């Protein structure tokens, strides 16, 4: 009798485990395609903020390059580059570097660079900076990130690529210096990387093919 109780109880628990898992599996299966389509659309929307649609005629999400082993871009993980071309000619690209020294961890960025080395713009895609202070680097929270629009390594000159507190040309945020300092540094490094590797970055996806 006692054994029977135990077995029944076990079976009930098992049934719930199975049905719970089945429910999750079913939902996952039925949402997977929509989710990845959504993610692609969201990514494309972000990229199009940095490379206007009329500027290129290729499929940004398919013309990618994965570069590895680039400490200059702030990460040891592979970094994806999205290239924009018009009639086969390279016009601009978006690099996805990381600012490793944010106030609370890494800050993931999108840096859009024109072929001539001027910035199309910068966006923050993921960060964990203090709400109300450091999170003003997010375009949704303040206009700070637009300070980078149309800048280049000549404007301001390289040695002034820093926040004002460090003698540079970029405003820090009220109550937050570490966050903007990290972002400015990461953008500067990315521009340096672009300057030194421009040709390789636009090479037809032969060097390191993206998945």
């Amino acid at each position, binding site marked *: 009798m006692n054994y029977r109780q135990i077995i*029944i*109880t076990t079976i*009930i*628990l098992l049934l*719930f*485990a199975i049905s*719970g*898992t089945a*429910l*999750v599996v079913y*939902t*996952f299966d*039925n*949402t997977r395609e*929509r*989710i990845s389509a*959504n993610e692609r*659309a*969201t990514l494309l929307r972000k990229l199009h903020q940095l490379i206007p649609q009329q500027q290129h005629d290729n499929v940004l999400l398919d013309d990618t390059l994965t570069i590895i082993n680039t400490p200059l871009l702030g990460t040891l993980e592979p970094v994806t580059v999205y290239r924009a071309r018009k009639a086969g000619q390279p016009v601009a690209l978006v690099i996805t570097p990381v600012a490793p020294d944010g106030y609370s961890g890494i800050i993931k960025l999108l840096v859009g660079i024109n072929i001539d080395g001027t910035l199309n713009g910068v966006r923050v895609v993921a960060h964990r900076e*203090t*709400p*109300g*202070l450091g999170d003003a680097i997010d375009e*949704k*929270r303040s206009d700070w990130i637009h300070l980078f629009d149309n800048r280049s390594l000549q404007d301001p000159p390289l040695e002034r690529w820093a926040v004002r507190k460090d003698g540079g040309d970029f405003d820090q945020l*009220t*109550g937050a210096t570490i966050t903007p300092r990290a972002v400015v540094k990461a953008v500067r490094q990315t521009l340096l990387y672009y300057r030194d590797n421009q040709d390789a970055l636009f090479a037809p996806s032969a060097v390191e093919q993206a998945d």
Partner: protein
Amino acid sequence: MNDPSYTRILKDGLWMNNPGTVQLLGLCPLLAVTTTAINGLGLGLATTLTLVASNVTVSLIRKLVRPEVRIPVFVLIIASIVTVIELAMNAWLHDLYLILGIFIPLIVTNCAIIGRAESFASRQSVDRALLDGLAMGIGFTLVLVTLGGMRELIGQGTLLAHANLMFGAFGEHLSLTLIDNYRGFLLAILPPGAFLGLGFLIAGINIINARRERKVAIKAVIAGQPAQA
């Protein structure tokens, strides 16, 4: 066990037995997220949805589950529901998901949900469990929005900032900057501000409850619940 009336369930969830200020459940997400009123609203809505779904499910299967394994079963149900909600939102309400997405995994850490499953839904009919989930969820949301609003106002001098993230273009008209050129009061935004804010909120509620009790002394004795925190 006598069934509580619908009004009683509503009153309990919204005020008398509010999960945030009286039961003090779900403090982890409550304190972490309430830096602005809009953040609070986001977590509140997601929690309400989960609470309603888990309460209804638990109530539906309450006669099937043996007491020895009820807790693991509740955990399974809640975890499955939260995952399904997260996936479904990601697929069909992607823009909302981008805003609320970070809050959804936090809901699993909210003990208010398993608390309601255990102490209410597993003993009550489906309609009462549903109402309880709704009332508790809305009660929790109110606390989140109030605390978020307090911290936002003191910390940054704004109210409902970034409402456009949740309500689209219409939300831009909701955002208020109450104090221009406010230098900000960092403490309110950082975690200690959450504890202080919640402390003042509970103190305020206790004062209101104590006054009420004095006015209607007889009724308060019957309820036996206010000001227990």
